[in-house]
């Protein structure tokens, strides 16, 4: 566990200029500031999920949404990121958990086809109704990343340097909570989701 912690610290601090020569450790980028006043559902791009369905972001309107950006060939960091997302999802009160949708969006538009994402979902044992592994055109993926403040950049070895960020959207698609970094506590974010659901019920 101590070793893992060390790796995480390394990853988080490895964006300095001096670290750019080290291929293995410069994958973690900071997140950018975002506009949380306005709905992300203005992005009207079409996405394909791992079940082969075409969806748009506003299909998820009215319910809280957890968004995470990752890529399938990422074997070191992304499984932790997906696991973090699962911890948040499973931290929501069980009675209302099926009100939550999880969008796991790949920025590897070349390799992560719906079929590949389907295999990924099955492998991670997350081929469940509330979870949607999604892909789209590169320009749409980049737009979503800009709106979330996620940075990513493809490297010459085919891997991506990227931010590690889990975002909670409220029922209108506005950013309600952001959790940056790996292995972060998820209690506050789960409380935000519970409160979004409660607010929606009282409307």
């Amino acid at each position, binding site marked *: 566990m101590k070793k893992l912690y060390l790796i995480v610290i390394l990853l988080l601090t490895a*964006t*300095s*200029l001096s670290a*750019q*020569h080290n*291929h293995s450790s*410069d994958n973690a*980028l*900071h997140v*950018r*500031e975002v*506009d949380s*006043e*306005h*709905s*992300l559902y*203005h992005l*009207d791009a079409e996405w394909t999920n791992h079940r082969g369905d075409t969806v748009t972001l506003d299909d998820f309107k009215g319910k809280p949404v957890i968004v995470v950006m990752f890529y399938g060939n990422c074997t070191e960091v992304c499984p932790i990121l997906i696991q973090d997302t699962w911890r948040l999802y499973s931290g929501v009160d069980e009675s209302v958990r099926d009100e939550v949708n999880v969008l796991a969006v790949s920025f590897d538009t070349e390799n992560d086809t719906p079929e590949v994402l389907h295999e990924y979902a099955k492998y991670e044992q997350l081929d469940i109704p509330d979870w949607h592994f999604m892909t789209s*055109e*590169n*320009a*749409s993926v*980049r*737009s979503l990343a*800009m*709106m979330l403040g996620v*940075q990513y*950049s493809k*490297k*010459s070895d085919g891997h991506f*340097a990227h931010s590690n960020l889990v975002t909670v959207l409220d029922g209108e698609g506005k950013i309600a909570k952001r959790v940056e970094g790996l292995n972060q506590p998820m209690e506050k974010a789960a409380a935000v989701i519970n409160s979004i659901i409660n607010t929606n019920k009282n409307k």
Partner: protein
Amino acid sequence: MKILTNIAPVTITLAALAVVMMSLPNKAVAQVLVPSGSFHSVMPEVKGEPVGVDSFYLDTTAVTNHQYNEFLQDHEDWQPENVPSIFAYKGYLKSWESTNTDEVVNPDYPVTNVSWYAANAYCQATGGRLPTLNEWEYSAQLMDFNSSMEAAEFADRLMSWYSTVDNENIGSVGSTGIENRHGVKDQFGLIMEWVEDYKPVVADDLSLDCGTVGRMQQLGNAYSYAASIRYITRMSFNPKSTNSTVGFRCAYDVETMEDKKASL
């Protein structure tokens, strides 16, 4: 004899297609193939190693006010009164007095005061995309000079342009006389341009200090000072920024373009 300021050898794999000029339906813009190769970036992934770039098509000029206005007719969502504030600051298209009329002021000038989101949407709508930062910088360096004197003079011109960009009087696209060897015009001397990934990966740790500029300057070629200025300027942007000296041009994947040609 031509002197190439580009240090890395340029591999031309599609030479036969190198200067294929073509037009998209309904668009007067011409695109040219920029053949694959490599260049020395001021911000390489690995210090001292050239950055490889695959072949792609690039608009020969920046998108004009006229072209952007046509896009707005078909995409009302992007008209200034409709555009959601998550996609652009209030300065979006502020130099346009009205978009309800067909008469666009300075139709041949490059459109500016457009956010990254708007530029990205325009290119997506034309079947293209924004060029990546590396594609844009690679194309910009594909210039030939007849002598090292000419290269030095060019570097001087660039330096003075970057220190005195005149946003009141930009000029028409194609008016700079600056063109790369494949016919891509005005990458210097007219406006700054959006690219898909406008902040380089390590940009968080950079600022406009002598050390940063010094590191970038080590390329020592005609482009390095100008490139340093561009990298540093881009870092101050965010995707909603609408700046009077920032416009864009679109790029296209080779397969997309071949498909288009086949269907014409």
